[in-house]
């Protein structure tokens, strides 16, 4: 007996057993979850780092059933972070998704990916022809990635509150909209938007003079920004609740706001031009299971799957045949709203996002303006 007057060793033993029982229970739950999560399947598993909208679970399961190929997916948030990570752990991945400029400038230059002959893949014939021939993705050794989706950054506005109807980046600087703008929490992109507003073309490789001009615009922008959106959900919520009248973002926000019960919004691509992305699946060098990738892509990139992905995630994709599938399904209006067939025209006017010579200075500038 100690000072507290109870027999501790037996009590502690029973306590420990109770806790052990709880732990075993939790372990059981975990094991069950892991079992759901996909056990070993003969045929092969490949490791894929990508964004959550590049796949649909049902489609993955179907491919598992038919070809016994399992995709082990790890999540990608942003290109820079993904790039930094892939540089460190390249052996562990087989496929990685990436946006446009990252593909040629960064990944390929670092020797992280393997170019391939895109025409070897039969399903690539379903793509728009120009998508198989993007200059920046064409190297003598082959094509750098299998094209997937694209979107420029558009400005969306609440039709009832914002007038006259804007068509430029300058609307973000209008003092009328103080505290009514939500932009994504991407410092580099915000600086790029202001670069576009100033009329510059190559906003990821700006000179010091250009940055000085941009600094003035950022100062005008700051009081107008209500907050930064961590995810697209945030921007959409802000529009729905009426907190924000103007947001920037990828295609599809009109539908999302409407779906959430929000007011009518309209989107446009600013007349000065915009930044944007187009992404692709790239084959990682020295991946252990890259032989599974072509069979996977042959199935996963079929038009029906692409169409289903569009319906679920809402941004345009590069598959020409999928447009036909959507029309047949009665979704022509929707696909047209997303400018599905205009990808070539729009992308030729869009500056693709990517690392550049002015990245570090842009971040410093952003910190300077938006810090305390």
């Amino acid at each position, binding site marked *: 007996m*100690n*000072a*507290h007057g*109870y*027999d*501790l*060793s*037996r*009590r*502690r033993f*029973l*306590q420990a057993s*109770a*806790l052990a*029982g*709880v*732990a075993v*229970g*939790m372990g059981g*739950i*975990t094991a069950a*979850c*892991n079992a*759901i*999560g*996909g056990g070993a399947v003969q045929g092969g598993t490949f490791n894929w*780092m990508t*964004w*959550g*909208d590049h796949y649909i*679970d049902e489609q*993955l399961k179907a491919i598992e059933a038919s070809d016994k190929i399992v995709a*082990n*997916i*790890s*999540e*990608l*948030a*942003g290109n820079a*972070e993904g790039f*930094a*990570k892939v540089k*460190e*752990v390249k052996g*562990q*991945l087989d496929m990685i998704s990436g946006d446009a400029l990252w593909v040629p400038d960064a990944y390929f230059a670092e020797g992280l990916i393997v170019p391939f002959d895109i025409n070897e893949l039969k399903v690539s014939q379903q793509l728009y022809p120009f998508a198989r021939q993007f200059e920046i993705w064409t190297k003598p050794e082959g094509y750098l990635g299998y094209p997937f989706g694209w979107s420029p950054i558009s400005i969306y506005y609440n039709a009832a509150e914002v007038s006259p109807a804007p068509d430029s980046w300058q609307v973000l600087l209008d003092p009328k909209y103080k505290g009514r703008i939500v932009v994504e929490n991407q410092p580099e992109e915000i600086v790029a938007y202001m670069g576009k507003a100033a009329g510059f073309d190559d906003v990821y490789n700006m000179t010091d003079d250009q940055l000085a001009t941009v600094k003035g615009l950022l100062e005008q922008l700051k009081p107008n920004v209500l907050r930064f959106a*961590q*995810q*697209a*959900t945030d921007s*959409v*919520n802000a529009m*729905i*609740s009426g907190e924000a009248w103007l947001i920037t973002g990828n295609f*599809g926000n009109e539908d*999302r706001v409407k*779906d*959430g*019960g929000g007011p009518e919004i309209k989107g446009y691509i600013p007349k000065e031009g915009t930044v944007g992305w187009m992404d692709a699946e790239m084959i990682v060098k020295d991946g252990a299971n890259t032989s599974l990738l072509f069979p996977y892509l042959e199935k996963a990139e079929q038009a029906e799957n692409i169409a289903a992905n569009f319906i679920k*995630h809402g941004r345009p994709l590069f598959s020409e045949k999928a447009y036909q599938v959507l029309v047949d399904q009665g979704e022509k209006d929707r696909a047209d709203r997303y400018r599905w067939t205009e990808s070539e025209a729009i992308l030729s006017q869009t500056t693709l996002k990517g690392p550049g010579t002015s990245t570090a200075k842009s971040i410093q500038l952003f910190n300077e303006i938006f810090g305390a």
Partner: protein
Amino acid sequence: MSTPVASVDPLETMPVSPYAGVTRWTLRLWFAALVAFLYLPIAFMIIFSFDEGATPGLPITGFTLRWYDEMLGNRQLLRALANSVTVAAVVAVLSTIIGTMAAFVLVRGGIRYPSVTRIAFTLPIMVPGVLIGVSLLIFFARAADIPLSLATVTAGQLVVTVPFVLLIVASRLQGFDRRLEWAAADLGATPRQTIRHIVLPLIAPAILAGALISVTLSIDEFVITWFTVGNQPTLPTYIYTRVKFGVTPEVNAVATVMLVATLLIFAIATVALGRARRWSRRARLAPRA
């Protein structure tokens, strides 16, 4: 000889602060208010998991169980959940053991410069998590050539949880009345028995607090985990990566399920402990044959 005057315990007639009752009620109210404050966002989070709209947030457009259904079919999400729970359990156990052991050494004089060591252990809490995360990524990948996995995630989280456990247990151990131990030694206990039967039970609340903090820190740890995670996601990293197009109420559904499961587990554990206590007391009081 008799003393007709009943003796009164002096404590009864001692002047009590006139504010005692008020104080007690104020504290009770404060506690209730705090619990309400803590659970307010939780309540909203749960409500949103039943909302029709695909974007969690006000206004509520309708009631549906759709997200729970989708959650069950979302293998990535479930796998992330399982990983989070596993890592949290391992981190809690390891950091509690490692931190408690180290606390003993720190407080009981096995270290040459204890205050410097104490400051050294405060450093991981003080350095921004992003810095720790990036440094570990570079360390694992370039210097140590270790592939990223849940093991590296665990290692990264230990860096911040062990100091917490160490500092909490050390702070409790600091004022520990050593005369209890000397008395035990006098009565013939070995140092090991003393620690097991005297010290540990008395500092158990601090150890438990450390373990709880470890689990809490681990289960939602995002920043360091983000840089050290390999192909197996944890729940926070999964949620964070819904960046490009947004998060759906599926994650609210998962969070609600986790919350309910945790409360259930603790309810069961409390009942089990109560039973255990009753049994041990009964066994102790039973007449020895």
